[in-house]
């Protein structure tokens, strides 16, 4: 059984087939990218994986486990974390608080203990904080620790969102267009971080991306989608050379 498998998954909104019988599998330690024009169903696949949507057909496997029926809030606990295309940070909280929310799936303390803030809670908090500090160090975010998200620039928020996902110590991280809205330099940084996530933290990366230079630089394998259907898959160069993909992008 491979590390992560999508098996014939479909998603239908009324008459529209957003995802149509898509299958692929991701190997452990891989950087796997889904590309495709706007509206191809890339983000829908992510939303299916993080269980925000229910698939109309097909199955999802994480390792040996069938996660098609797992409620969304338990996905993080299984070791799948994600970022969002348009950034879904907790705007009116500090970065530190945001990252600590990333630790939520590892929370062990009970409500009554927290109300009294027993030593066990303090101990757990310190442990969470230590982990968060590691991520801050890793992504070089020290300067923003006590800053409110609402006041931070877009590029930084993108990184913070990635940091929040990393705080949950995932095995698989889903990055939804990590470079969108970033300038060239920031995109460069992003490509380094994505590779570091895989090489230093050993986390498998599944991402949706438009920027083909970034895709070419980091991806091991690429899957191209159009109108919810798989067009091609393989190495970046193979996929880009595929006639259907070229047709889809050129609109022919």
């Amino acid at each position, binding site marked *: 059984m491979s590390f992560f498998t999508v098996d014939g998954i479909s998603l239908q909104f009324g008459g529209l087939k957003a995802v149509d019988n898509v299958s692929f599998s991701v190997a452990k330690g891989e950087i796997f990218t889904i590309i495709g024009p706007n509206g191809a169903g890339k*983000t829908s696949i992510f*939303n299916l994986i993080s269980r*925000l949507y229910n698939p109309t057909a097909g199955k999802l496997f994480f390792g040996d486990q069938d996660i098609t029926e797992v409620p969304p809030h338990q996905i993080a606990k299984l070791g799948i974390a994600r970022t*969002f*295309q*348009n950034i*879904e940070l907790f705007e009116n909280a500090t970065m530190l608080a945001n990252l600590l929310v990333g630790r939520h799936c590892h929370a062990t303390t009970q409500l009554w203990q927290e109300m009294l803030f027993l030593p066990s809670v303090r101990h757990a908090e310190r442990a969470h904080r230590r982990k968060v500090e590691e991520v801050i160090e890793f992504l070089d975010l020290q300067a923003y620790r006590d800053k409110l998200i609402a006041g931070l620039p877009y590029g930084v928020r993108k990184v913070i969102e990635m940091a929040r996902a990393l705080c949950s110590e995932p095995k698989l991280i889903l990055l939804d267009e990590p470079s969108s809205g970033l300038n060239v330099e920031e995109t460069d940084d992003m490509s380094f971080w994505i590779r570091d996530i895989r090489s230093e933290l050993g986390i498998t990366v599944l991402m949706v991306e438009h920027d083909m230079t970034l895709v070419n630089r980091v991806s091991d394998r690429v899957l191209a989608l159009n109108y919810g259907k798989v067009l091609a898959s393989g190495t970046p160069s193979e996929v880009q050379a595929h006639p259907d993909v070229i047709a889809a992008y050129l609109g022919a």
Partner: protein
Amino acid sequence: MLDFIQQLVSGIALGCVYGLIALGFVLIYKATEVVNFAQGDLMMLGGFFVFTFIGLMGLDYWLGFLFAVCGMAVFGMATERILVRPILGYPQFSIVMATIGLGYFLRSIAGMIWGTDDLRIETPFSAGVLKIGDLVLAHDKLSVIVATVILCSVLYAFFNYTRMGTAMRATSENMLAAYYMGIPVKRVVSLIWAISAAVAACAGVLLAPITFIHSNVGLVLGLKAFPAAVLGGFGSIPGALVGGLIIGIIESLAGFYLPQGWKDIAPYIVLLVVLVVRPHGLFGPSMRKKV
């Protein structure tokens, strides 16, 4: 059976009252996402305006009606300019609080200006009764039904088929985008408040023979119209009418067939049930955030 039909008809009449007030809520919410808690009090003020024109100045009913509606439209515009515009875009609940404050203010001021006694005006609808077989419908209620239906249709058509209406809908979807598209957002919002206050004035005038004119009339009726607007789906004009009708009919039937006390809570129980099944009301758009 006759009892049932009679209650149904009474319920429809009552429902139109709620629908008429709910319409005012819906209009403002539609355009600015502000829930105007002073809507009932605008209605109350409309009643006092018409009393001033007809009862004190001795004008003809229809002329007084017209003056009251125009006067309230100006008042609505002024309210928007002074109270709402400076805080538009701040947390919604803050604006709601401001309208609650406005409600307190208007109720007390009305009491100080027009006194605490209940007032009445003579209207063409005050006394007459329409009889169809054994079925009875008073003219005052009939006038409310007719007015509600007319206002709902006119406003519905206005929103859907005129340029200004389209501009208003655009504004309500996305104010910033509307602004960039060259829609005079400020004027649109002003106009919405004017229309809403005018609708409230209509309600106040038409209800005057039924509820009399006093400074607390808006508080209670506003509280009944509010669930009507929500039941229909806040932001939907036909929804306001349908929501009002449902609440009115339930109240009437519960008052007749159930033990005392149920009349007042039956509408709320139905409201809760509907909301559990349809969290955005009957006609509310069920939108989903895109991520």
